[in-house]
């Protein structure tokens, strides 16, 4: 393959050599880090690794332990609650806000900036601030009680049953602006003719949005959906800063489980098994999307 082919022309391997040299970092990242490291983790998830990785295969034992671990089960349950709430609310609120901003209003830039600025903040800052606001002694609850409603109780961060909703409130504050901006960009791309046509037909604006614009924005929605979902699976810093998994273990999330097992409990095998489960989760979400996005085009 790489042999010079006699006619004096440079071999195929050396054609376009500079571009290939320039692409070496990308090739290394793709093949070594993304493919190699992932395979490495998957392989070692079947071993007995403890403090150090060891190739001592024990079959599915790590996975059995994982799915019998209360902390992991709570993590998965929390991820489902968190994910469902985030997806529903960030898209509904984000879309409504995008529609409102799309009404040719004044000060659009100001509103957009205010809604988007939390996205530039660190999750640590978001977590800490919402930890204060949701604090029962000097936060939101104390304000409402000070107005005379003495029995008012809103203390999600100290109640294991609803602690995830406290995290969702903070995450929505941070992430909705991003969904809104993506959808707004999509709305701007909608042809004015559509609006004229529906207006002539006497369709009310909200119906146009719901039944005409939303289907047209499908690609934008899917892009936003994939980005938001990938972010949900990775949620870590926010929980660490806001609740640190508490009260008890009631706000643990998978990413935190992996970190704790790998770097605090010296239980690498568990960490690898848990991260492999995260990989599987993401694959279940990404593969259908990639198939729809790229697979269909090739055939069509």
């Amino acid at each position: 393959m790489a042999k010079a082919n006699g006619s004096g022309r440079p071999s195929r391997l050396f054609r376009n050599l500079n571009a290939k040299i320039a692409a070496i970092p990308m090739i290394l990242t793709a093949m070594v880090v993304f493919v190699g490291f992932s395979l490495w983790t998957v392989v070692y998830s079947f071993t007995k690794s403890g403090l150090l990785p060891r190739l001592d295969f024990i079959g599915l034992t790590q996975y059995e332990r994982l799915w019998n671990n209360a902390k992991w089960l709570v993590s998965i349950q929390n991820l489902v609650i968190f994910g469902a709430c985030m997806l529903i609310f960030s898209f509904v609120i984000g879309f409504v806000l995008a529609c409102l901003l799309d009404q040719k209003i004044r000060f659009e830039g100001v509103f957009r900036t205010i809604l988007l600025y939390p996205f530039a903040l660190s999750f640590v800052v978001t977590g800490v601030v919402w930890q204060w606001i949701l604090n029962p002694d000097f936060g939101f609850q104390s304000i409402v009680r000070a107005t005379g409603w003495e029995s008012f109780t809103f203390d999600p961060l100290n109640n294991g049953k609803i602690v995830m909703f406290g995290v969702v409130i903070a995450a929505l504050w941070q992430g909705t602006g991003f969904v809104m901006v993506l959808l707004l960009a999509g709305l701007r791309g909608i042809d004015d003719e559509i609006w004229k046509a529906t207006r002539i037909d006497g369709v009310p604006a909200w119906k146009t949005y719901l039944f005409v614009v939303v289907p047209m924005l499908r690609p934008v929605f899917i892009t936003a959906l994939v980005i938001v979902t990938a972010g949900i699976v990775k949620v870590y810093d926010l929980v660490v800063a806001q609740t640190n998994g508490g009260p008890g273990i009631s706000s643990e999330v998978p990413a935190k489980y992996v970190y704790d097992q790998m770097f605090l409990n010296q239980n690498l095998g568990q960490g690898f098994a848990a991260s492999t489960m995260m990989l599987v989760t993401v694959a279940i979400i990404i593969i259908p999307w990639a198939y729809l996005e790229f697979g269909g085009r090739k055939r069509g």
Partner: protein
Amino acid sequence: MADIAFSGPRGPKPRRRLSGRNIMIYGTLIVVALYYLVPLYVMVMTSLKGLPEIRLGNIFSPPVEATFEPWVKAWAEACTGLNCEGLQRGFWNSVRITVPSVLLSILIASINGYALANWRFKGAEFFFAVLMIGAFIPYQVMIYPMVILLRELGLYGSLTGLVLVHTVFGMPILTLLFRNYFATLPEELFKAARVDGTGFWGIYFRIMLPLSLPIFVVAVILQVTGIWNDFLFGVVYTKPEYYPMTVQLNNIVNTTTGARNTM
């Protein structure tokens, strides 16, 4: 002829400023904007209060006696563990992490994008597809092998190692950004330069770079916010004396309020 029929006022019916529709739109937006500003307000107000006032009052009231003492204290005296240098150490660590990471990752990704857009070689699309899929792999899957690699390279726990990590994990999105941007530049420019005998690097530095300032600005914003706010890589790949500000901040808040154990 038509002029006669439409000799009245033209254009759309002027809207009243205070129509119900406008009140609803602006009202909703203003309420939402206020909600979004509350945490910022809380942050600033609380930072200007002394500790006793925080304990007593509620977080929404403005400070009775505004004091900048907490700012000074946080900057220079706050403790994490045995170290009492304050946040300034984390701040400078963050600077020393962010600046080289942003420069290196953008330099590499822009060259990658340029090679992918203008100098397609066999297999390029495949590697690019792998890179894009890799962007969705949770970092937790790749964290530990990366620790081993950095340890083997002797970079584990150092700032250089962390810069490398940021460069690697920032690559997919940046490469995509640059590739798509370079693909929109007119191909004639590229062809003309090639006819004139300019090589790979010549075209990159003398034609592509000057034309792509806007996308570099986007990339810088993306990377600066992303790396500055990073928590996970900072905590995994550095030693306490190199912790970025996010990690240090989390540790300070959790030790001083005493409500929870530190990590």
